[in-house]
């Protein structure tokens, strides 16, 4: 007997795979969803191998919440060439493991080395693998499933032959799988190993009889009992390993059960409704396999593979997510909402690899070729071959370039300036937050020691503010609707709770909310990232709490993963050696005896495949047709309007202009000018949420449309109704251009004198603490009035504050409520209802709301619609009767623009309209009105606010309209000024010292009377946000 020859196909597959994936990972892996998270974990291990507690994310979490092998491997390799070197090396290893694993799995299933070779070549380009690696970056999952595929032949051999050696090898490989990915072996047990055991029993049964036909259920049962002991031994041992190898993980899961509310995931969507999810989680992973489905099912439902047939059926159905109700019913509510269902499709596609190889073999050089050529002719065979390979190549190219067409991540951010910033001047003594970084935030965390309140592994988080929200990260909260911004604004309003001082913003969408929550811009870094800072935040304490675990668990976690690899390597190296280098003659393994002869391809299957393909093709073409109808922008007035608004939303002005009536002779330059001068909350910070139109056709070429749009802005939800008229010209609908505001300011060039401030910070460059004499005195503020009131069911502290110092002040107000027994009930900071920056002697009304952690009690009633202004009042079990107000002033040098004028006012019983006039030299992006309500005695009752949707340009007016509050009694609960402190000192003392002769109710003659059953007067104050101050 001669040593068997090397499998040329496998070698080709390996070379191809390494060349193709190995070179492309450098362009794809860093922009995938998960790769950088694994990099962050790897960085953790590289720095503290045996200490599972990580302080950097989520105010601390344990890395024992994810199997460590891949992370530790990257960490270990990072000692050689850095973290990214480690990541790419591990990715290369994963590629090799996957290809060889596919080969071995295919060999096991088909028993034919050529077919397995075909399968391994096709596996290289299988679109599910390409997607998992290049789009998702799920390295642990790939390693897990690859090693599992390596384990399958060993399991087969153990159960078939009962040789203890095979038991050892298969268990060793199972342990490696477990330590790299926990879900893979658990579900792999069900979906891969159980069917495999079934197959072994079938094979054993087959050996006892003469033909397949004779394998009856009885024979099968007999074989089962014969093999029962081996199966039980294997099952028991692997169960022990699955638990034992990552024991700390299980202990941690028990100790810290995942309290996270379900986070929406595209794989649970209805793929027919949300086609983008259907594309990513169904079409791409299945790819060309969709065409082969009849063949795959036909083969897997043959007697030998019957259990694989059942398995792949379940996987296919579970993989359809929310398209059918079956996955929800099968998995149950909890599992359905925790699992990402795309993994089922991934496993189904991996399970199909051997049969894809088989089909390809039969099509290229086997009986299928003969059948087609005989029945339909050689040319048809060639054409079909061309179409199939074309489709196959197209899917690969399409998947690889998906990120190019639809970037899942923001542009790559240079992290060095941020890392440098954090290292400077002790900035890393506070926590930071990134906004709009995407998964790159993990890469930033890996590079710095500074801590963030956010994180990118949501299963591990513990802060109730986060676990009660269905959001992945705070960082991308704008995509998560109400829950996202609602969660973010709580962090922004009470940042001192988390020692959060710096925010790196890569998305100007968040600027207004940062500003109105009291943050200020520091500077723009070289990479274009804006740094925001909040004053008066204490640094992170040097001793932080952690949940410690026993030392043996730490050692277990640090040693076990590599130990499993080492053992698996030692046990399997011999097999590798023999298999690869063909050093000695090896009898053919057992499963090779069960290959079928490819002599007669089932005609019906061919027929069915044809019908199925025609069906698929028609579905595809119908889809494309629908897509065309929806996207042909000028087919109907609705399309024209929706396209126009979409274009405006995405700032595609050229496209928007192309929809403007060409007869209006509006050149694009003029159109752009008109668009570009409008600024404000709506035009610069809004994202369109919903649009609906009411079209009124006047004749076939004229229509008017009432356009209802809902816009998400960081501050509030805006509903808008526009009226548009449309005209049909040459079969295409066009919009009439809007009228322009012709307002012409009186001055061409004008000047404005302003006082500007500059805070030197440290005057001497030193690494020591700031010099005593360089520390500025905190500006002195005075609380003029403050009271605890109840209105509309919620409690609030309202009042008025004045900066009585000679320097501008940044104001932070923190209110605490107590009951009669002086028990603290709630504490919160002033958010939108205060001017956070006060010039000397300037006053501001304020209101402190007491927000609870939104939806913490009402998990099921999270509204689906987005409302950033959503407010969850804190639930009080006891009646608040007293309050404490802590005011802190810090010298402010920016955002001190005050040149805004209330230039006209009209009052009707329930509406106030008026004009704001910008008298200064900077453009006001978002004007905010603070409206204070007074009773008939001119005593304060309530404070309300209004964000004006449009900005105000220099020397121009902007109208606003404010709805007066509905009827409702404001109950004053406590108006004692006793417990009010400014910069830690009693308010009264300060007041008596600096303004001993204060004129109280000084401007009571200047309050605006209104007609309202509950309120008699109002006062309007104006606060401004300037997007680009100079």
């Amino acid at each position, binding site marked *: 007997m001669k040593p068997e020859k090397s499998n040329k196909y496998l070698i080709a597959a390996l070379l191809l795979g390494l060349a193709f994936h190995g070179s492309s990972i450098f362009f794809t892996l860093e922009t995938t969803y998960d790769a950088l998270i694994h990099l962050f974990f790897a960085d953790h291990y590289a720095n503290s191998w045996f200490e599972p507690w990580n302080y950097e994310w989520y105010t601390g979490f344990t890395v024992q919440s994810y199997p460590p092998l891949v992370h530790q491997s990257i960490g270990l390799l990072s000692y050689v060439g850095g973290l990214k070197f480690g990541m790419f090396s591990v990715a290369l290893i994963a590629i090799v493991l996957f290809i060889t694993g596919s080969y071995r799995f295919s060999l096991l299933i088909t028993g034919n080395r050529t077919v397995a070779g075909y399968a391994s070549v096709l596996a290289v380009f299988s679109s599910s693998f390409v997607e998992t690696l290049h789009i998702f970056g799920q390295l642990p999952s790939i390693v897990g499933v690859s090693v599992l595929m390596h384990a399958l032949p060993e399991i087969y051999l153990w159960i078939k032959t009962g040789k203890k050696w095979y038991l050892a090898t298969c268990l060793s490989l199972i342990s490696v799988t477990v330590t790299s990915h926990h879900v893979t072996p658990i579900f792999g047990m069900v979906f891969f190993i159980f069917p495999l055991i079934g197959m072994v029993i079938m094979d054993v049964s087959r050996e006892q009889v003469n033909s397949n036909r004779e394998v009856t259920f009885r024979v099968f049962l007999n074989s089962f009992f014969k093999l029962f002991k081996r199966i039980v031994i294997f099952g028991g041992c692997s169960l022990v390993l699955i638990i034992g190898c990552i024991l700390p993980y299980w202990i941690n899961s028990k100790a810290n059960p995942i309290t996270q509310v379900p986070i929406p995931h595209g794989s649970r969507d209805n793929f027919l409704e949300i086609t983008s999810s259907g594309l990513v989680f169904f079409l791409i992973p299945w790819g060309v396999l969709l065409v082969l489905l009849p063949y795959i099912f036909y083969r897997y439902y043959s007697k030998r593979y019957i259990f694989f047939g059942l398995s792949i059926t379940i996987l296919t159905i579970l993989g359809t997510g929310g398209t059918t109700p079956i996955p929800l019913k099968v998995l149950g509510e909890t599992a359905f909402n925790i699992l990402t269902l795309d993994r089922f499709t991934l496993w189904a596609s991996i399970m199909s690899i051997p049969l894809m190889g088989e089909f390809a073999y039969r099509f290229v050089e086997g009986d299928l070729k003969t059948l087609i050529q005989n029945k339909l002719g050689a040319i048809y065979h060639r054409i079909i071959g061309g179409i199939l390979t074309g489709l196959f190549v197209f899917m690969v190219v399409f998947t690889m370039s998906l990120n190019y067409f639809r970037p899942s991540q923001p542009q790559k951010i240079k992290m060095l300036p941020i890392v440098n910033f954090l290292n400077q001047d002790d900035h890393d003594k506070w926590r930071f937050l990134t906004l709009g970084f995407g998964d790159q935030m993990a890469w930033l965390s890996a590079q710095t020691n500074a801590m963030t309140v956010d994180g990118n592994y949501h299963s591990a988080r513990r802060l109730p503010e986060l676990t009660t929200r269905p959001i992945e990260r705070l960082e991308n909260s704008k995509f998560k609707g109400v829950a996202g911004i609602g969660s973010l604004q709580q962090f922004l309003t009470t940042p001192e709770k988390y020692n959060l001082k710096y925010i790196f913003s890569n998305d100007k969408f968040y600027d207004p909310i940062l500003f109105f929550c009291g943050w200020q811009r520091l500077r723009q870094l070289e990479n274009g990232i804006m740094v925001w800072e909040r004053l008066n935040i204490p640094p992170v304490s040097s001793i932080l709490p952690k949940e410690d675990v026993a030392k043996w668990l730490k050692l277990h976690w640090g040693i076990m993963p590599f130990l499993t690899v080492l053992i698996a390597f030692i046990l399997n190296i011999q097999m590798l050696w023999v298999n690869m280098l063909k050093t000695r003659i090896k009898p053919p393994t057992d499963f090779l005896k069960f290959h079928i002869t490819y002599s007669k391809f089932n005609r019906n299957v061919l027929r069915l495949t044809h019908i199925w393909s025609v069906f698929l093709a028609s579905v595809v073409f119908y889809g494309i047709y629908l897509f065309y109808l929806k996207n042909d922008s000028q087919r109907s007035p609705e399309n024209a309007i929706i396209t126009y608004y979409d274009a405006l939303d995405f700032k595609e002005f050229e496209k928007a202009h192309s929809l403007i009536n060409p007869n209006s002779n509006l050149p694009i330059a003029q159109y752009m000018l008109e668009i570009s001068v409008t600024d404000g909350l709506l035009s610069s910070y809004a994202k369109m949420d919903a649009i609906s139109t009411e079209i009124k056709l*006047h*004749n076939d070429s*004229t229509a*008017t449309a009432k356009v209802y749009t809902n816009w998400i802005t960081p501050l509030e939800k805006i509903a808008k109704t526009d009226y548009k*008229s449309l005209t049909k010209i040459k079969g295409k609908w066009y919009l009439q251009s809007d*009228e*322009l*505001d*012709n*307002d*012409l*300011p*009186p*001055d061409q060039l004008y000047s404005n*004198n*302003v*006082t500007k*401030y500059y805070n030197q910070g440290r005057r001497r460059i030193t690494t020591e603490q700031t010099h*005593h*004499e360089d520390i500025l*005195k905190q500006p002195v503020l005075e609380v*003029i009035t403050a009271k605890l009131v109840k209105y509309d069911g919620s409690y609030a502290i309202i009042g008025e504050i*004045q*900066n*009585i110092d*000679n*320097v*501008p002040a940044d104001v932070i107000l923190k209110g605490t409520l107590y009951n009669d027994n002086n028990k603290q009930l709630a504490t919160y900071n002033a958010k939108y209802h205060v001017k956070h920056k*006060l*010039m*000397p*002697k*300037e*006053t501001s009304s304020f209101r402190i709301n007491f927000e609870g952690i939104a939806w913490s009690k009402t998990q099921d009633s999270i509204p689906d619609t987005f409302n950033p202004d959503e407010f969850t009042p804190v639930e009080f079990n006891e009646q608040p009767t007293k309050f404490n107000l802590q005011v802190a002033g810090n010298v402010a040098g920016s955002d*001190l623009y*005050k*040149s805004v*004028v*209330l*230039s*006209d*006012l*009209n*009052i009707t019983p329930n509406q106030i309209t008026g004009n704001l*006039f910008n*008298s200064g030299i900077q453009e006001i992006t978002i004007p905010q009105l603070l409206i204070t309500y007074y009773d008939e005695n001119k005593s304060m009752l309530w404070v309300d606010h209004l964000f004006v949707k449009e900005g105000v340009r220099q*020397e121009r007016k902007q109208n606003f309209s404010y709805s007066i509050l509905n009827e409702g009694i404001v109950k004053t609960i406590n108006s004692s000024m006793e417990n009010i402190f400014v910069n830690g000192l009693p308010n009264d003392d300060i007041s008596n*010292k*600096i*303004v001993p002769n*204060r*004129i*109280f109710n*000084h*401007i009571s003659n*200047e*309050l*605006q*009377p209104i007609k309202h059953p509950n309120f008699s007067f109002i006062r309007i104050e*104006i606060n401004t946000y300037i997007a680009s101050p100079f």
Partner: protein
Amino acid sequence: MNFQFIHILLLCIASAIFSEAQQNSSIKLLTTNTSFNVGNSIVLKFSTGNNSQPLLYCSNSYGSTIITSTLQNDTLKFKIPENITKKIGIVNWKLLSEPDHISGHFTITPKAQVATMETYIGPPSIEAGGKDYSMLVVIPTDNLDNPVPTNTLVNIKHQFLNTEESNNVFTKNLIAYRKIYSQEKDGRFLVSSESLGTNSKEFTLNALPSIPSNFTISVNRPHNYADGNQITTFTTSVIKDEHSNIVSDGTFVNFFITNNKGNILKSSGLTIGGVATAKIIHPDYGDTWRIKAYVEGMAESNSISVSYQQIIDDFTVTFTNKNRNINIGPLQSFMKQMIPDGMQVKLQIYHKNKLIETYIKTTFNGYVAFSLKPEIFKNGQYNFTFETAGIVKEFKNTTLW
């Protein structure tokens, strides 16, 4: 009686025990000095009868240590380490020899010599007027970083405007301090101190103006017409505090404007050199404004009144093209010039006494044009209301055809 007895008894027992301890001791302290100058080397000597060399436990306010001895001619010598002899204060010691625990203490006294001046001043800014103060704290220290002896003279000096002042204070409880009161004028104090020939560095103390007092306002405008375009400027007099210091730059002054309708408009200004200016656009209809400025809770201005003259008394509306093209204008300003672009014109269209549409447009070159599409406004009778510059014109039962 009983108490006294017990007291005496206890005393006897105690003295007996102590005297016993004293007598049993074979080691005796030879050093008699209990006060040493800081920085000098200190050796404690004991006479001993045997050759045992017990350890000496030694403790001062910085910590404790154990010292070994050298034995020479029946004399135990303990050299106190430098880190103890360099710090002033009481040093307690105890000889760790069984059975006799001899203990005692000595004092290390400071040097009357100043090497550095540790100085703090706070707050760094105070209010002018003589009531507010800042405090300078000086800790003169010797070259070993020990505070100097009590009652060391410290000379605290400060300069303000034309005056330079020097005051003698004495250290007490290790520090010397002095409150520096502001004066009526605002300005900058420069403060320093001196002790035993050593001078501190310079410190800055800013005296800032105190709260403003009442002021007056004036108005300045290009013309007195209500053209809705020009800008009126309000200016305050130089705002000063009660001691005639000009208030700090950036002081916020609120201007409240009450118009004829009784509505309250508002502008604001920040002072520069005590003068705050606030701007407001002219109204587009004739109006009289009463203006008063406030620094809230502290000071206010006089109240002034400003009138704006109506510029448009009437305007022409022309209907053409089956009444569907409506042209308004020319809208002319006070010299019959075309009104500056941007004057608002509001058109409200009523059909069967129901408001069906409102259009707001702004003038361009003195005119505004509306065009009513037949597809939207079917043929029929309509009422139109035009409003601009506070004037309303109605056209009833106009037919569109």
